[in-house]
């Protein structure tokens, strides 16, 4: 099974029309948009589209005509998520997207010089750190094309003159990391949110271009630290499939179990943090108490608690600990069911929580597809977006489980999806844990790993949604371009849509239930 993709090359002028026709064909979900610097060929973008009905994918590649002043047509009228993806490509490559109403920088400071992901970027242009605060502009930038073919820049104010703008973040207890919401309030009602990201942007994708493949693995765990196993699984799987390596059954099963344990860990932490955000401190500690049991299992086998470094290209790093099966049984048969019962008693059933979550931050199915909100957020709105069902990988094709979906798409549903998924994950583990096949835990690999020339895309179902890895190789020992489909970026982008018209306190609830991890958003 190869994961090589051969993007259909489309001229910049026909890009919008082609994508629109593809959307009409049923490719209604823009899974990922990757900016690439092809050197001589120029700057460009690869669009990866998915049919939500079947999970089938197609890829479209478009190169900017002008290298000095690159621009492409925006597709944010077709998919809402494209808006933020295009801002990301503009930030890293300087590709201007015409008619995108808000084409500002997204991760880097507004006074940053140069576009860091370009191959000819000079690092000495910017100081290592600034001590003066970032000049945050109040104006959204929109690029349009004049009749004479020149790009014109127009600026429109983001907030009205009389808006009461409150900064929530970057240092705020319930933004789950360093996220900055500039929120305009009408009384206590949120009228608009302008999200600023990049406070933890470490340039992992750019760093990877200078690292060998095993070195790149080290960075994946630090992106989504609550999906460390899954992110690393995605990259390992992408490289293995690109090189044509078949890992043993044993590795497949171990990876599946570990992914599910990680999912339980992540969802319990989701519960804890949501409880903390809503002021139920005791429920927060209950969640952490049970989470420690999972960490104990991880620690015995992997040696780490949070950053696990377990998956390797061609297998896993260590064999399972002798106590693994016993511990996991104890976890899924005693600790988790008991914990879940307590969570429901102390928090789910509580009338205050019910009224705070019901009908708050409703996202319809069309919204979540357009905004690309996968994972629990998508499934709460009734979108069947679970990759474990759509495009099964590892050992997911041999286990039976239900894809949890709800209909309303409000905060309560998003919460319930996660708690129900904990049960399903336990069920998956239960089917696998007693018959882990024998076999090698590591395939024989060459000392230097080189991926054959080509473009590859693999994705797994992370704790928070589809986690894709786009890999472009020139046959070297380092990747030419490595791009992660961050699970959190579309989720942060949807906050504005979900929070408008709700109260300030609801912003916390919605942010908590949408469940994003900032280092994963910023990379």
């Amino acid at each position, binding site marked *: 099974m190869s994961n090589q993709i051969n993007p259909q090359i489309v001229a910049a002028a026909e890009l919008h029309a082609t994508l629109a026709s593809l959307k009409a064909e049923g490719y209604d979900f823009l899974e990922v948009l990757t900016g690439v610097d092809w050197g001589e060929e120029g700057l460009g973008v690869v669009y990866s589209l998915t049919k939500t009905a079947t999970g089938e994918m197609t890829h479209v590649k478009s190169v900017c005509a002008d290298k000095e002043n690159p621009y492409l047509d925006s597709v944010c009228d077709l998919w809402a998520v494209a808006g933020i993806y295009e801002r990301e490509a503009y930030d890293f490559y300087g590709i201007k997207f015409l008619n995108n109403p808000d084409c500002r920088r997204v991760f880097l400071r507004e006074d940053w010089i140069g576009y*860091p992901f370009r191959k000819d970027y000079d690092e000495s242009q910017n100081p290592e*750190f600034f*001590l003066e605060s970032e000049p945050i502009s109040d104006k959204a930038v929109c690029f349009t094309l004049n009749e004479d073919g020149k790009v014109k820049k127009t600026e429109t104010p983001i907030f009205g003159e009389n808006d009461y703008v409150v900064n929530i973040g970057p*240092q705020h207890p319930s933004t789950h990391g360093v996220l900055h919401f500039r929120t305009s309030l009408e009384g206590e009602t949120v009228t608009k949110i302008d999200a600023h990201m990049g406070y933890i942007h470490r*340039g992992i994708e750019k760093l990877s271009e200078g690292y060998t493949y095993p070195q790149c693995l080290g960075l994946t765990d630090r992106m989504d630290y609550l999906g460390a196993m899954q992110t690393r699984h995605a990259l390992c799987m992408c490289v293995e499939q690109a090189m044509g390596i078949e890992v043993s059954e044993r590795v497949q099963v171990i990876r599946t179990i570990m992914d599910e344990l990680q999912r339980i860990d992540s969802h319990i932490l989701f519960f804890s943090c949501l409880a903390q955000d809503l002021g139920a401190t005791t429920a927060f500690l209950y969640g952490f108490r049970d989470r420690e049991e999972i960490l104990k299992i991880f620690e015995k086998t992997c040696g780490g608690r949070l950053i696990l470094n377990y998956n390797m290209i061609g297998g896993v790093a260590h064999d399972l600990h002798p106590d693994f099966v016993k511990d996991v049984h104890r976890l899924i048969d005693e600790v988790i069911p008991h914990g879940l019962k307590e969570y429901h008693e102390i928090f789910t059933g509580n009338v205050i929580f019910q009224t705070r979550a019901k009908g708050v931050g409703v996202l319809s199915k069309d919204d979540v597809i357009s905004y690309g909100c996968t994972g629990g957020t998508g499934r709460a709105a009734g979108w069947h977006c679970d990759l474990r069902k759509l495009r099964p990988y590892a050992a997911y094709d041999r286990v039976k489980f239900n894809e949890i979906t709800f209909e309303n798409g409000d905060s309560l549903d998003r919460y319930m999806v996660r708690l129900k998924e904990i049960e399903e994950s336990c069920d998956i583990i239960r089917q696998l844990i007693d018959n882990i096949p024998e076999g090698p835990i590591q395939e024989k690999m060459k000392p230097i790993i080189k991926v054959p020339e080509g473009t590859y895309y693999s994705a797994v179902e992370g704790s928070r949604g589809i986690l894709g890895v786009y890999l472009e190789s020139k046959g070297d020992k380092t990747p030419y371009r490595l791009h992660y489909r961050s699970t959190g970026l579309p989720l942060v982008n949807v906050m504005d849509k979900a929070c408008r018209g709700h109260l300030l306190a609801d912003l916390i609830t919605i942010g908590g239930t949408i469940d994003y991890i900032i*280092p994963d958003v910023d990379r």
Partner: protein
Amino acid sequence: MGVKKNIIGYTPAINNIPHEEFKDNATLEKLIEELNEGGVNVVVAPLDRLINLGRSHSMWPLTFATSCCGIEFMAVAAARYDMARFGFEITRNSPRQADVILVNGTITTKMAPVLKRLYDQMADPKYVIAIGGCAISGGPFTKSYHVVKGVDKILPVDVYCPGCPPRPESFLYAMMQLQRKVRVEHFFGRVNKHQKDPYAEQMSKLNKELLNMQEKA
């Protein structure tokens, strides 16, 4: 006030911690020597010790976390590791009320001014602990174009706690090291503000300019 003199055998010792354990910490030994250079005031020294007892056992951390270490920090506050035992009970969300800032995680170029400002907003006495490889030196991201290579370039760091992320035990050890450091400080007889008013110079400059302008007019 009391007479200033050297009392043989009296040093501002570190209570509650066996000296053997503390001996291998050369930095602190040096610090004590420096503090004792001018002699210890008889009346004030016990008061100092009392205040230091209070300060060291009531370090309220600021809830500040940028990435992975923050989750471990939450684990430290939670049931199994329970940092409330040591008096680090209340994590304050407002920098004004916090005593120690634990720099959990990578500090990027964009975050640096924010962190600096948070530190400036804290009230004295304030302490900094750099948690994890990223805060100490940039960690795995040293080569990045957008990462500050060590938080000590922006803030005066008191304790470094290595690890990626450090285990909760390391967190507790780092905070206990800070307690030791606090216990040998002086409250009386020296400047208690660790930091100059960042705006004082700027304001005096502005005032002078204003005066000049008025004179010219």
